[in-house]
């Protein structure tokens, strides 16, 4: 279809200005033709379908046509209407405000690269958006700066689902020959050999974008041949710190982990990536983050030999794949808690991690805002937080954390249940482990205790841990009941946290 003139009516819509004329489609601003007010600004995407166009162009529009109708959430434009694919192909969707990441990168030009904190923020926004897709059993598979829109409120909206793959629908772009489908600069190694549907391919693409943001260069260039694309099956890119000295080690660690040639060595889910980008001080820096010299020739040669045999293998359902590597959150009470409860919590965490290799653990405690002070030095936020972080680390010491990335967090809130639920929501936590009875308050039917509130409002599974009985004798102290009660009252006066 050639470009439509403004003012043309089309299937109930009135064509407005052409906002984008790409190789694959035109995008127009549109309004309802009957003058009805739209609830948000609209755009219409009309594919280019001239004679001589490749079939792939039309198929990718068909894929997007299918997916836009089922994807939901704030990380995709809202779907409004679709025309008949054969007679009148078009898609009407929300015109999301904001600029693309490409626009952001172009504006940097030759000026200074963004700060690590900015890069991390952008990366976390992209990772969250990707995770939201993965939870809907969809892999984007064409993430690149032009397809990431930065919403003014800070979240990322993903665009262009023409090469995406939804595990519940036949993959129209698949074929028996398993050709690489994607954009050469950002395509993941497994996509090069024809794997479509691994969520970790999107993590790789995010890694490429983070690399570009950090260094101004593309880690694998922009190869034009399939041999050039195959390079990433075995080659590590130059460490970002060799191009930019001031880049922190933790950020290089994160970027290079995203760019691991083997999907299994990358972040197991985008939620794990977002968590690292949001907690730089908790990133475990390895040699990968510290290196400033490239990978030695012989290592590359060995990998090259292995990669020569790499071929297509089907991927499991994305949602199942990311469910297998959940983020487990444990809420550890920091006040008025028996040793037995702490012990039982630890046991429960140990058990849930044991069942799930690769799962990530977030150890969280909530303190009341009154505990920190901006005037007294020993009650400064960092000092108080450090004290609680140490407490959490000490608590976690006996847990077998081999193979589980772990981080520790102190939240300040006067509403413990809400703080836990919000944290779980914000970080895509899959399982919350917490004590069933705290503060000497047993689980009761009519009192909405913290665990009950969390269980009711949490977006995920909640494991309520009951204190294990044999431990109770252990927990007995030398104090008389009166003394215990006194001690309890004293503590309660000092820093009362309803937890």
């Amino acid at each position: 279809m050639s470009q439509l003139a403004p003012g043309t009516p089309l299937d109930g819509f009135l064509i407005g200005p052409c906002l984008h004329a790409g190789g694959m489609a035109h995008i127009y601003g549109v309004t309802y033709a009957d003058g009805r007010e739209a609830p948000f600004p609209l755009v219409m995407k009309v594919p280019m379908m001239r004679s001589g166009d490749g079939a792939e162009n039309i198929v990718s529009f068909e894929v997007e046509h299918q997916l836009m109708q089922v994807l939901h959430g704030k990380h995709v434009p809202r779907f409004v209407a679709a025309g008949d694919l054969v007679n009148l192909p078009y898609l009407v969707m929300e015109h999301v405000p904001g600029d693309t990441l490409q626009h952001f990168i172009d504006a940097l030009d030759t000026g200074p690269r963004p700060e690590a904190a900015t890069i991390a923020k952008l990366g976390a926004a992209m990772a969250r958006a990707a995770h939201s897709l993965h939870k809907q059993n969809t892999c984007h598979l064409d993430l690149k700066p032009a397809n990431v829109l930065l919403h003014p409120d800070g979240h990322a909206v993903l665009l262009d689902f023409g090469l995406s793959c939804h595990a519940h629908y036949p993959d129209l772009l698949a074929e028996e020959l398993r050709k690489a489908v994607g954009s050469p600069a950002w395509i993941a190694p497994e996509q090069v050999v024809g794997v479509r549907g691994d969520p970790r391919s999107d993590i790789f693409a995010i890694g490429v974008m983070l690399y570009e943001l950090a260094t101004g260069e593309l880690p694998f260039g922009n190869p034009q041949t399939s041999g050039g694309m195959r390079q990433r099956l075995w080659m590590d890119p130059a460490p970002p710190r060799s191009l930019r000295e001031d880049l922190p080690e933790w950020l290089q660690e994160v970027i290079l982990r995203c760019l691991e040639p083997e999907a299994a060595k990358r972040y197991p889910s985008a939620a794990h990536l977002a968590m690292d980008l949001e907690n730089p001080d908790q990133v475990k820096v390895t040699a990968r983050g510290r290196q400033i010299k490239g990978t030695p020739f012989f290592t590359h040669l060995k990998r090259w030999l292995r990669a020569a045999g790499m071929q297509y293998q089907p991927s499991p359902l994305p949602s199942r794949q990311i469910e297998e590597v959940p983020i487990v959150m444990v809420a550890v009470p920091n006040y008025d808690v028996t040793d037995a409860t702490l012990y039982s919590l630890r046991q429960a965490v140990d058990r849930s991690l044991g069942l799930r290799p690769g799962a990530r653990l977030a150890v969280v405690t909530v303190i009341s805002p009154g505990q920190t002070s901006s005037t007294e030095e020993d009650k400064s936020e960092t000092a108080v937080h450090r004290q609680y972080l140490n407490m959490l680390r000490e608590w976690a010491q006996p847990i077998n954390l081999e193979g589980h990335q772990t981080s520790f967090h102190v939240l300040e809130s006067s509403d413990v249940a809400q703080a836990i639920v919000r944290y779980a929501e914000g970080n895509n936590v899959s399982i919350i482990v917490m004590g069933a009875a705290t503060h000497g308050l047993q689980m009761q039917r009519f009192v909405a205790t913290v665990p009950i509130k969390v269980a009711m409002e949490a977006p995920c599974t909640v494991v309520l841990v009951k204190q294990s009985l044999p431990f109770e004798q252990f927990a007995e102290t030398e104090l008389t009941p009166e003394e215990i009660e006194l001690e309890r009252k004293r503590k309660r006066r000092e820093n009362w946290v309803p937890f």
Partner: protein
Amino acid sequence: MKYALLSDLHANLHALEACLTHAAKQGVDRIVILGDLVGYGAYPAQVVERCQQLQAEGAIVLRGNHEELIQSHSLSEAHATTSYGGQTAEWTHHQLSPAQRFWLEVLPLTAQEGPVLFVHASADAPERWRYVEDDRVASLSLDAATQNPDVRFVFGGHVHHQSLYYRGTGRQLMRFEPTPGVPIPTPKHRHWIATIGSVGQPRDGSPKAMYAVFDDSACRLTFHRVGYDHLAAARAVRDAGLPEFFATRLESGR
């Protein structure tokens, strides 16, 4: 129009009723029975009766290979009493009235409704009962059916598995394993061929009955799995004195 596609009922009345109830809840307009009403299960007469009733109400009912196996001329052949299949065919023959057997014998092999072709096995030679079990056979069946340019969809049974075959960007057909309950867009400008599974004798490891719903105006195909009292169906097989194998098969779905 919404079609409920049911195949390979295999005299399993419990499963058939469960699927019909489920289909009614989906707002189905028309029932299509894609053959193999009898064989293996304990209720051949009741299932035939039910299907005759459905046919009177407008359902399409096709013939499958088991409708032939239970006829006198097939029973007289060599395999009659030695194999499990032969034993149930013999038993089924005697459960049915001559009128019922005749009704089964003259059922059509295929039926076409606009762009949809229904067939028990493979459309290229329906009477040969070829299993549409891979992309190669699916291709033969689809190519034969689409000789008629109106045909866009071929729906069949016979293999007791749910699969959808389609063309990606290459020439060969691709096989897709559907997720139960998820409507799959199957636009008319493409060709599709599906095996919709078995109502009365699932063999993929789950005892749940299989059937599918096709909406020809929205072009959506939904594969369903329906739980039913499969233990009662298995018990009935034992009580009828049929081979134990067919009872355990219903219990395990294998």
